């Protein structure tokens, strides 16, 4: 067990010297989480827009479901994806278990409800504002969706960043479906868990520092975007 101060010194050394193992883990983490965010946005934004603009039977139930799914336990999602992708599972033939793709799928499943639920709320508010004007202009449905998504772009980007924050900090699901395999599926959170259990606090702390820097950067990005949007009255 290392001394706390030594661990910090070693961690900063790894970060400053751009340690190869550290960079590999960080790169894989970013690749997995950014891919998951992209998939979640592709599904979640149109879904949020459809629910936000639509008036259909069972809409309230869909909204309740989306809101409830925002709190999905990662380990449960990991377990379900594991069962689907394991050799005995219905999608076992894809041979995706213990690959970065499986981790992307797990994170996408976790954050798609977040993107859909938050974008639903944003689109619904904007739609209420534009609705009468759009009906007066006879704006077609697809044009209205496109216009709402574009006009809400700053708020929706904030949603995407919130999804990214959740994805990159997630550990339960990716450790189940990824297996935390060195040089293959090891990401920051799973590596921190492993190195801490091994007593190698330097690498765990170094990864923790990177994770915190990413979290701070994401929040700074969100704040900068909000300020920019407010300055131009686009928010």
């Amino acid at each position, binding site marked *: 067990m290392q001394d706390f101060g030594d661990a910090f010194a070693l961690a900063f050394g790894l970060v400053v010297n751009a340690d190869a193992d550290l960079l590999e883990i960080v790169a894989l983490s970013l690749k997995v989480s950014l891919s998951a965010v992209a998939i979640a946005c592709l599904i979640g934004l149109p879904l949020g827009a459809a629910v936000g603009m639509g008036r259909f039977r069972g809409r309230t139930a869909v909204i309740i479901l989306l809101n409830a799914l925002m709190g999905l336990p990662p380990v449960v999602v990991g377990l379900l994806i594991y069962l689907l992708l394991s050799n005995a599972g219905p999608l076992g033939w894809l041979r995706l278990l213990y690959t970065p793709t499986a981790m992307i799928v797990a994170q996408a499943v976790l954050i798609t409800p977040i993107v859909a639920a938050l974008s639903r709320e944003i689109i619904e508010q904007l739609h209420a*504002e*534009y609705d*009468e*004007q759009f*009906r*007066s*202009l*006879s*704006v*077609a449905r697809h*044009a209205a969706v496109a*216009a709402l998504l574009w*006009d*809400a772009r700053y708020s929706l980007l904030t949603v995407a960043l919130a999804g990214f924050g959740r994805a990159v900090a997630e550990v339960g699901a990716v450790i189940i479906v990824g297996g935390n395999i060195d040089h293959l599926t090891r990401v920051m959170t799973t590596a921190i868990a492993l190195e801490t259990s091994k007593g190698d606090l330097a690498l765990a702390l170094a990864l923790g520092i990177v994770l915190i820097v990413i979290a701070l950067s994401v929040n700074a990005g969100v704040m900068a975007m909000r300020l920019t949007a407010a300055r*131009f*009255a*686009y*928010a």
Partner: protein
Amino acid sequence: MHEAALKQRPGQGTYAVESAERQVRAPRGAARGLAYEVGGSRLIHGIDLDLPSDTFTVVLGPNGAGKSLLLRLMHGLLQPTAGQVSWDGRRLDKALRLRQAMVFQRPVLLRRSVAANIRFVLGLRHVRRPGRVHDVLREVGLEAQANQPARLLSGGEQQRLSLARALVLDPEVLFLDEPTASLDPASTAAIETIVKRAHERGTKIVFVTHDLGQARRLADDVVFLNRGQLAEHSRAAQFFDHPASQAARDYLEGRLILRHT
């Protein structure tokens, strides 16, 4: 009162305009047995109304009279509970609505630049007229603000942009729901000038206002509503000098209307 009794203008709705492409021919509007109710409460009571094609119609009435509802029913934003709306004898449908436009009391502007708000409307109709954005912004005095965010404009400028967006497609009918309600006198005058110019080009105007001075300045004919009923429809001079209904007399004299017409 019917169209024949209203002020006649040469051309009966076909106007000589700035250029051939800006020519607008307004249709005649009609409502028959128009009624609207919400939750069992009837807000518009069986209105029969003829709107001449070539007049500047002002809709007056106390709060809650149904002026905005009538506008929305005539434009097709609301479906009547009973009765129907037609323009030139044809029942109001989507194709007819595409030839109409509406300006609301509170401008609803897209979160984009001034020019992009105009381009959005042109894009909806697949209109590719180079210079049209520039022309319409010049017409409403917003040429210099073309690249500014629309929502940073002043209230009067926002309403002028809203008007420009309505006028850019040369609508046959333009509905305005208290467009100057929260504007200062200069902005009000600017809006009135733009609307009058559109009317001179042939656009049928249906204008809701609470401002009696404005109604006197603009109206050819006045539709007066009271408690969801058509109390009076007459030439402006006749309405203001010799209102036929007690409700209109009370309204013009600033008295609270306490009874049905």
